[in-house]
């Protein structure tokens, strides 16, 4: 299997009003691979991730320079439809945030937005998405129950099912297991391992062991003197954790700071 770049940032900087949160990050995200973003808290990992599907647009006073290339096109181009961007680049958040509606409706929410109304098609898609998120067997008999009634880990998998139901090409995950117990965390990690055969996955984590376990590539971000996040090192996960090229990466992964 050849390695293709699915998504790529070029000199990406993010500003909140006068404060610069991300400084000139350039890195690739390969198709059907898991790319992890690690770094100490406050280094802008989440901000970087949110720039990849323009979720930062929601923050008043935020501004982006540089490019985010998805399949050759800059998602920040004038006239680019943000709705289209978010359909192709899905997102899973730190805390499970299902809608207070039934499990079925949670998963069908996205597809319905895009005009999919036929019951049979939706049924099929909901099942496939729930299977994809390894939740089907647990909920297939209670699809009409509220999504809020599930356990934390199940809720997070429901959110994953909801995200993959719109059949995105890239899935962004913002510390998806940080609010979960170890067993649920393990299930999510396994799930990410299977999901990468269908999707390109970018995951932010503050847990280095997790990054080492599940990712193929790892990017290490660190604050510079102006407290803006900078890319210190990007390479294959194994290489980064065993033979870091940068002294600061080595300090971080050996636990000398952060």
């Amino acid at each position, binding site marked *: 299997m050849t390695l293709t770049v699915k998504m790529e940032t070029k000199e990406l900087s993010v500003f909140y009003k006068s404060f610069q949160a991300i400084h000139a990050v350039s890195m690739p995200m390969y198709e059907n691979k898991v790319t992890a973003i690690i770094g100490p808290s406050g280094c802008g990992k989440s901000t970087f991730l949110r720039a990849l*599907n323009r*979720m930062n647009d*929601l923050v*008043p006073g935020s501004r982006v320079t540089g490019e985010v290339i998805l399949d050759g096109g800059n998602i920040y181009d004038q006239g680019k439809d943000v*709705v*289209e*961007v*978010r*359909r192709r680049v*899905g*997102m899973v*958040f730190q*805390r499970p*945030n*299902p*809608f*207070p*509606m039934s499990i079925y409706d949670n998963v069908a*929410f*996205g597809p319905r*937005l*895009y005009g999919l109304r036929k019951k049979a098609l939706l049924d099929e898609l909901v099942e496939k998405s729930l299977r994809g998120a390894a939740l089907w067997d647990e909920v297939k008999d209670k699809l009409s129950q509220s999504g*809020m009634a599930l356990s934390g880990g199940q809720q997070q998998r429901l*959110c994953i099912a*909801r*995200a993959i139901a*719109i059949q995105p090409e890239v899935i962004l995950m913002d510390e998806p297991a940080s609010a979960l117990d170890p067993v649920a965390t393990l299930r999510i990690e396994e799930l990410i391992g299977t999901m990468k055969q269908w999707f390109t996955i970018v995951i932010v984590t503050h847990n280095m062991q997790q990054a080492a376990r599940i990712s193929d590539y790892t990017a290490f971000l660190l604050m510079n003197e102006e407290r803006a996040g900078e890319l210190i090192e990007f390479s294959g996960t194994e290489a980064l954790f065993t033979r870091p090229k940068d002294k600061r990466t080595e300090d971080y992964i050996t636990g000398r700071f952060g």
Partner: protein
Amino acid sequence: MNTTIVTKRPRWQQQLRYKLQHGDRLWKLLLLLASISVVVLVLWIAWRLWDQSALSRHQFGWAFISPWAPSSWNPALDKFQAWPSIYGSLITSIIALLLAVPFSVGIAIFLAELAPPVLRAPLNYMVEMLAAVPSVVYGLWGIYVFLPLVVVPLGNALAATGGQLPLLGGLLKGPMPVSGLSRLGAALILTIMITPTIAAVSRDVLLAIPRSQREASLALGATQWETIWQVLIPYGLSGILGAVILGLGRAIGETMAVTMVIGNTTGGGNSILRPGYTMASIIANEFAEAVSDMHASALIEVGVVLFVVTLLLNALARWLVWSVNRKTMGS
């Protein structure tokens, strides 16, 4: 042993200390008394009104509030039946609610989700001010400005078009009084008056919804409107319903502005284009000049009905708002 304890403090300080601690008991008693009196006050209101309406209740029984009993409001004959004024309250409040709800929810959405930060504070102020204008001022403006300029032409147009319809026709039967004094006028003034109340509570409900709900929806590619309509409104639905019921309670209890524009007559049939009474306006208009004990008692019984209706509505509204708050905190 006891006698050997040495008192370190001078006697006057001990006395002061004793008195202060004694003061604590008095303080607690005061707090308790004040709190109990608030509860007692509500019970007292209920009991007093119930008691004072005895004459009327015994004389007329349930027929007093029945839609099917022959209606009559005749102080000369001491025969009273309250349905026309109950109908007036219901029809004006329901029309006001139907008109005010879309407006209020729209306003709440704009204030909570869309208003640019610079505009937010002044707009919120304006909505609050709208709720603060005294009822009589609305009434004065209603009589001399709103009725002739808006209600009369609107009423005439309705009578000319809707009045001809087979089913709705009865509700829209003309002629519209030239003064504009009518149930329609009251309903429209009520719309203006309850919109800020519903809007303000709904806005607070929307603002209390966690950000993660908005993010989840937008990340799926929903537009801002889809997020509002398909996620936020359902999430806050019971709270918004609470706001609506609060508005209904206000509309039913609203007195002065309605009394000034509704025309105050027990006739008027069912048409909204005709003058009428509401429960509040019949009390306001007649009680000070009640001609007999029975007349006064009947008016107080109308007050009892009003009390019970607003009590139920308020309890329901509080419960709905409370349940949405609990849900918000739970997640």
